[in-house]
């Protein structure tokens, strides 16, 4: 059989996603957080866990987990019963015993109720017999100047420019299938610049976080994408990333949750100087 014709389902950014990591099953963690609320996490099985703020009752969740390298995990779950929806994303770094928590909320902005708001908290993992580390993962500008091409599936790749600690911009050549699939939404925007945050995990490894905020403010329900928050655990040593989306999408005229796990492979790319240096029309 020519396996080019294998009857695979439609894939967008999730085709090259690595399989779910289940190796944390049976482990428990205590996260000592700088934000003042510590968290306990008990990984029950390959896809279920219990979590709680220290001192509170444990709550159950269905999680998703992927690895950025041998000892760094993204561990992600929606809060059961939360309305509007909430999502917790932990970056668990067992090499340095550090943790980053990104809490994402929908419904905090009365003008744009689908906008995803994010809160960042940094902390350390308690390990018996060892002092708590003083170091932390941290917001960073180290990635500024990075231009990279990410391959998401067999036909789609996009090119990212990380040029500001608060924004990024995206493009693709016409021979990427992004030209047909996501291009129309960007063509009506003044630019593809979008709100971003950058967290350093360790040398050559970063959390890159973007929220489709400008698109939601500018296009609203005329775009199918309604403010997704995307978090990428990017490994520039190996040149790949894993990640997830949390947000909403329009389907048949209705707003429905958008939750996707993804992964992609990268390569350096040289991009046009004029595009790289164009002004961001959304900033002063």
């Amino acid at each position, binding site marked *: *059989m*020519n*396996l*080019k014709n*294998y009857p*695979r*389902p439609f*894939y967008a950014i999730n*085709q*090259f*996603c*690595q*399989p*779910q*990591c*289940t*190796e944390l099953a049976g482990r428990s963690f205590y996260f000592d957080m700088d934000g003042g609320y510590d968290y306990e996490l008990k990984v029950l099985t390959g896809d279920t866990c219990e979590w709680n703020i220290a001192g509170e009752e444990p709550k159950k969740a269905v999680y998703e987990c992927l*690895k*950025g*390298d*041998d000892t760094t995990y993204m561990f992600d779950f929606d809060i059961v019963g939360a309305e509007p929806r909430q999502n917790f994303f932990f970056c668990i770094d067992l090499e340095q015993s550090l943790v980053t928590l990104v809490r994402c909320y929908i419904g905090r902005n009365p003008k744009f109720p689908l906008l995803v708001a994010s809160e960042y908290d940094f902390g350390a993992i308690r390990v018996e017999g060892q002092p708590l580390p003083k170091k932390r993962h941290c917001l960073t500008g*180290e*990635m*500024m*100047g*990075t*231009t*990279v091409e990410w*391959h998401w*599936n*067999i036909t789609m790749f996009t090119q990212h420019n990380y040029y500001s600690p608060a924004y990024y911009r995206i493009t693709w050549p016409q021979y990427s299938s992004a030209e047909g699939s996501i291009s129309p939404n960007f063509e009506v925007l003044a630019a593809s610049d979008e709100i971003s945050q950058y967290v350093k995990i360790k040398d*050559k490894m*970063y959390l890159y976080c973007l929220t489709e905020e400008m698109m939601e403010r500018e296009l609203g329900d005329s775009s199918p994408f309604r403010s997704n928050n995307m978090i990428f655990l*990017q490994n*520039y*040593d*190996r*040149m*790949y990333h894993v990640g997830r989306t949390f947000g909403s999408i329009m389907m048949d005229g209705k707003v429905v949750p958008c939750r996707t796990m993804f992964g992609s*492979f*990268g*390569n*350096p*790319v040289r991009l046009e100087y004029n595009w790289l240096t164009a002004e961001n029309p959304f900033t002063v």
Partner: protein
Amino acid sequence: MNQTNIGEKYGVSQYRFPHCYDLKASAFTLYCGADARTLEFRGKTAAALDGAERAYECLKIEQDIYFILLGDTAAVLDLKEKTAVLSEPGGYVFASLEKGGKTLCFTDDAMDGTRVRWVFGVGRYTDHAYLSGGKALADWAPGFGETEQAMRCVHIRDGIYLADVRGKAPEGSCAPRGTDRLLLLEDYDHMLAVGCAMGGGNVLVSGYAKI
């Protein structure tokens, strides 16, 4: 600072996925005919095949399907279907993880007609065209021209195949020097592969397909 790199220090293993430790502290009996073999994972890096301890590395291609390299032996375990394949220097062993259970076999023509490029790193790839009769055309980046090579195939599960292509990689290609075999566990749903380039030091690889 531009964080990208072309992975010179990793070569063909640049895109290798993180090691998988799912199998740590688990043990299996491999039933093959009247024989029973044992495979025990004693930690994250130590395993024992028939009691003889050796280092191992494991990559996961799909939920419950693992590619394991144990020195000069490679294994594929499918924990859902309870099947195992061992590729040892002396040949292949097809086993079941339960007594009397089903075993796999060679399905050499199952991928006949498939032409695929597996990309293992920046500018590092191999081109395969699978033919009938246990043959394949193969080439390595940056491109030296396809040569006919011997090939064996095992259909592991829907969309997932173990392809064993044997032939020397050209001198100056992206393959490790001395590579004479590429054993790849290929997923035609997600279009990903994990495996090992053998003969030049046995290097684990992962990558994506262009088809």
